[in-house]
């Protein structure tokens, strides 16, 4: 296993992706962009799974399976989220999240 990229590099990348996602989720007002940020967060987790699987338990595939499940769930989630976004657009004529603040006191 010599000459490969060390684990820290994966973790740094995934951490960067995670916080980019969080940042995007909290600052972007566009719902589609927020959805993309969530995908970033999920993918950072996937990287962690795969990386840890590779470095800690190279004989197992559990981490890979988890990544696959996360991808599948993310796909379903994206489908549902986009459906919701389309409905929001129909109701508010906008996908700006600040305009969707009916659910308050």
């Amino acid at each position, binding site marked *: 296993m010599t000459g490969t990229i060390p684990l820290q590099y994966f973790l740094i990348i995934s951490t960067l992706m995670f916080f980019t996602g*969080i940042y995007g*989720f*909290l600052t972007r007002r566009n719902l589609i962009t927020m959805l993309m940020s969530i995908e970033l967060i999920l993918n950072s987790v996937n990287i962690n799974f795969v990386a840890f699987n590779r470095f800690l338990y190279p004989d197992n595939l559990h981490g890979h399976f988890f990544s696959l499940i996360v991808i599948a769930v993310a796909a379903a989630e994206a489908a549902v989220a986009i459906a919701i976004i389309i409905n929001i657009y129909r109701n508010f004529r906008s996908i700006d999240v*600040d305009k*969707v603040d009916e659910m*308050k*006191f």
Partner: protein
Amino acid sequence: MIDYTYTLLIPLIPLAVFLFTGLAGHKMNPKVSGLIGTTGLFAVTILSYLTAIRYFWTDHLHGSGYQAMKAFEIEWLHLTEKLTINLGVLLDPISVMMLIVVSTVSFMVHIYSLGYMKGERGFARFFTFLSLFSFSMLGLVLATNIFQMYIFWELVGVSSFLLIGFYYEKPSAVAASKKAFIVTRFADLGFLIGILMLSFMTDTFDFRTLVSPTGPAMLQAGSATFMGLSAITWALIFIFMGGAGKSAMFPLHIWLPDAMEGPTPVSALIHAATMVVAGVYLVARLFPVYSMVAPDALHVVAWVGGLSSLFAAIIACTQTDIKRVLAYSTMSQIGYMMLALGVSGYGGHDGLGFMAGNFHLFTHAMFKALLFLGAGAIIHAVHSNDMRDMGGLRKYLPITHITFLIACLTIAGIPPLSGFFSKDEILVAAYHHSMPLFIIEFAVAGLTAFYMFRLYYSIFWGKHTHYHHTPHEAPATMTIPLMILAFGAVFSGFLPFHELVTSDGLPFEAHINYGIAIPSVLIGVLGIVVATLMYRKETAVPAKMAGGFGSFYTWAYHKFYMDEVYLFVTKKILFNLVSRPVAWFDRHIVDGFMNLIARVIEKSSYLIKGLQSGRIQQYGYVFVTGTIVLVIIFVFIL
């Protein structure tokens, strides 16, 4: 033990009818509700007569006197090992007698109402309430224990309230129904206190145990005393207070005249024949206890009854509303029954008063229901309650006229009609017990004849009144019950009550005491003659007589200002001294505390409601910050 379990059906049939017509009545033709109710009562009447015939005659139960038997009983509430509340059916001479009274009158009133209430709004509601009343009254009569009686006692109060307020759009009817309910409720408070005292002392609610000569109640004669009377005497006086309220005894009678606001068949059923005699029935039910351990309580019963009968008879002579005259007459006659129980001893010929009171209850139910139903037929024809609007009706209402005359003769005690026999027995019992009470009752007998014939002549003879439209005789549904009840009023006097309904269940010999019967008939005839002279033709005599009595007449006309006294006591004294402080405390302290809690919560929620902004990203910030804080705590501090 002969099986009488089927008697359970007697109260349950009206209950089923009540539930059915009450829940499904508005979906049916009102006439169907009426017919269902009447059919149900017909079945009850058949069962009641069957029971009476079996109990008194065919089953030969009187070997050692008619004994009380429980046809059915289940435990309802288990309070302690010894004290349970049961529900069941008790058969003994007085309950079987009451079955006959209640079912007969109720059935007659059902038939009569089919005609009387025809086309009325709320026809189905009326029959529903009648069924509820029949159920409650039959349950009361058949109660095996004093608590069951109390439950049904309240139920008849509710039915009476509902039926008095039947015309709930009329303010006077609403006021009358509330008055009846509140006054009897107040009396029932005494009843409840009495029940609690009695059951505390005897550890039982059961009537059979209570009245048994070796039972626990009989051991209480020498118990703790209060103000010179033993505790059990007080308990029985309190119980009598409940009975006095229901039976409109002075001074708790004020609700009965106002209760005449209800439809006339209701007055006949509830306020003449059945519910108002519940007080008499209650005293009769506990009679052995009264008689053996609390003779003082029995004196109270006798004097309250005697004074009420005199008081009501005087007022009845001055009233002009025909239903109110009958209401005061009812009060007066119930006074007779109470007095009869009050002067009675226990066992054998000493129990004459007990027998006479129940006998009078029976005959009174027949002739007073007849009078009320007759009054209903008259009101139906004339559309007025006031006897000054009437006169010369005998030509227009022949059947009503004859039956009304029979009832008047009966209540006046003319032989051989039933009222003569029962009233005579009461007078004999009073004569043997107490001279003042006998004189009161003797005078009341004359007054009764006088005011009944004043009523009779004013309605059917007297001045020739011009009516807007010719009065017409009532339909057959109304006249047939009149004829049946007239039959009962004439012949029920021949029932051998001294063999059937006696204080100890054993028959005794009863004779007509001519020394008392002849004067009592003569004073009745005297009353009739005076009334004939005064009211047969329109004369100036009544006005002069009224003037001659002066302020006494005015007092009687205003019912001795009893209503005003009550209003003074309740409005001026109770409202100002009790209700107002209580209301102030409730409004300012109790409500204030609750309002304070509400206000604190409202203010604090106002402060924090901004947190719920509806903005997802704000929630996101809070979530992420919270998570980071938790991570820092867990990783670096803990």
